[in-house]
């Protein structure tokens, strides 16, 4: 891999990727120096969730491990959370509950 593989708490798994993976729970407001400049996390990013490495256009293929993992359903800015709310599978729809954001406990009582 050429260049950096780590951006603060975020990991680049393959040079081809347009997403980075959190290797620790990362708080809202955290400043992260990406290749295109500084971004500020607009929400907490839980461990193992993804952010955009750079600006992604609606319809772009999302690459992780250098391989396609889905398609952007909307424009995603660099540093934004990349997940079920803005990408979709090219195969079968993703099943999720209220806790898909990785923050809520998923229990009501």
């Amino acid at each position, binding site marked *: 891999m050429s260049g950096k593989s780590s951006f603060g708490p975020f*990991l680049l*798994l393959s040079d081809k990727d347009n997403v980075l*993976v*959190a*290797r*620790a*729970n990362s708080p809202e407001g955290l400043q992260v120096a990406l290749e295109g400049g500084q971004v500020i996390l607009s929400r907490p990013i*839980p*461990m*193992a*969730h*993804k952010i955009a490495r750079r600006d992604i256009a609606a319809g772009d293929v*999302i690459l*992780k*491990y250098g*391989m*396609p*993992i*889905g398609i952007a359903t909307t424009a995603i800015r660099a540093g934004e959370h*990349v*997940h*079920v709310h803005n*990408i*979709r*599978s*090219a*195969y*079968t*729809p*993703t*099943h*999720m*509950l209220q*806790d*898909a*954001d*990785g923050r809520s406990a*998923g229990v009501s009582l």
Partner: protein
Amino acid sequence: MSEIQAFLRSDGRKGIRNTLVVAYLVECAHFVASEIVHQFRNTPHEGEVQLIGFPGCYPNEYAAQMMEKLCTHPNVGAVLFVSLGCESFDKVRAANAVDSSNRPVKTLVIQRAGGTRSTIQAGADWIRQTLAQIAEVPRVRMGVDELIIGTVCGGSDGTSGISGNPAAGKAFDLLVAEGAACIFEETGELIGCEEIMAARAVTPELGNILRESVQKAERYYATLGYGSFAAGNAAGGLSTIEEKSLGAYVKSGDSPISGLIKPGDIPPSGGLYLMDVVPDGDVRFGFPNISDNAEIVEMIASGAHMTLFVTGRGSVVGSAISPVIKICANPDTYRNLAEDMDVNAGDIIEGVRSIPEVGQEIHDLVLAVAAGRQTKSEELGHREFILTYKSFEPIGPACLPGAA
């Protein structure tokens, strides 16, 4: 490293445990069978007497074959079948299969044995005599090249694919190099990986078969309307089935793929095998594997002496018949569930240890567990089991190019 003193069975296969299984042949016999097993709680034989079974009243060739393979698995020393009496399961065929493997076997029919209490008593009495008998099974030395190891992931999250699964893959590479047979599975979680996987097949024909197995899974799940993806996968940062698949695929390591097997097929020699778990033909009987233990049971039916289970969200299961080694991919989950986890692959996420270091730990633990060390789930008493309806066509010769 202590050497493996295995239990020698009359077919020449070797087991790393000497289990007595109590198998109910319909849900109506489940309670009675489980009460028989409970008679051995808090005795020196707790953990050795284990419950398995099939819930359905209607016949199924897959279930019949699986039951025979499981009851003649090298980790099994004797079998007690518990039948209600009127179910469709062919208990004579099953008992004959166990008998011809020279294992002690007994069938109790509740409708003829006097009912619940009488059957529990008769079952417990038979087990007490039989435990003494199977304690005499000859012990022989077993090499790594005689082991069959399965791998599964369950409760996956976004850490699974970057820590636990690559470490399990590294352990598989070490074991395959030493001549062991290693099985990975769940073709519904290889969607998007079919091309890179096909390129690793030992022959181009096998490559086509691997590709077709994933395409079959894709069609099957499309009909069902859900992928092999649970809600907790999304909470853990996985956004799509192909993202989950790429993470799961790395558990297979980097070895060439020697063959494709279906549940119950025994790998003919060492090497890496893909198990095709998705039924053949029209979609019938529902989901291919309704939960992780269904996959574990299928690998055991194919001879797996133990299973490597990689989890991110935190599964706590073990299995009847063959031990489960739990590898925790997520460091937060590990801290939360350390009492259930054998290996902390979360160290990789936190930069404490490398993938090869954790892979070596898994490899060494496989050998220790084969030599008798209890896994966490064994110590805790986990002996989960599930077997349901399916249908398969037999594999063709191109699936096992090395066996010809």
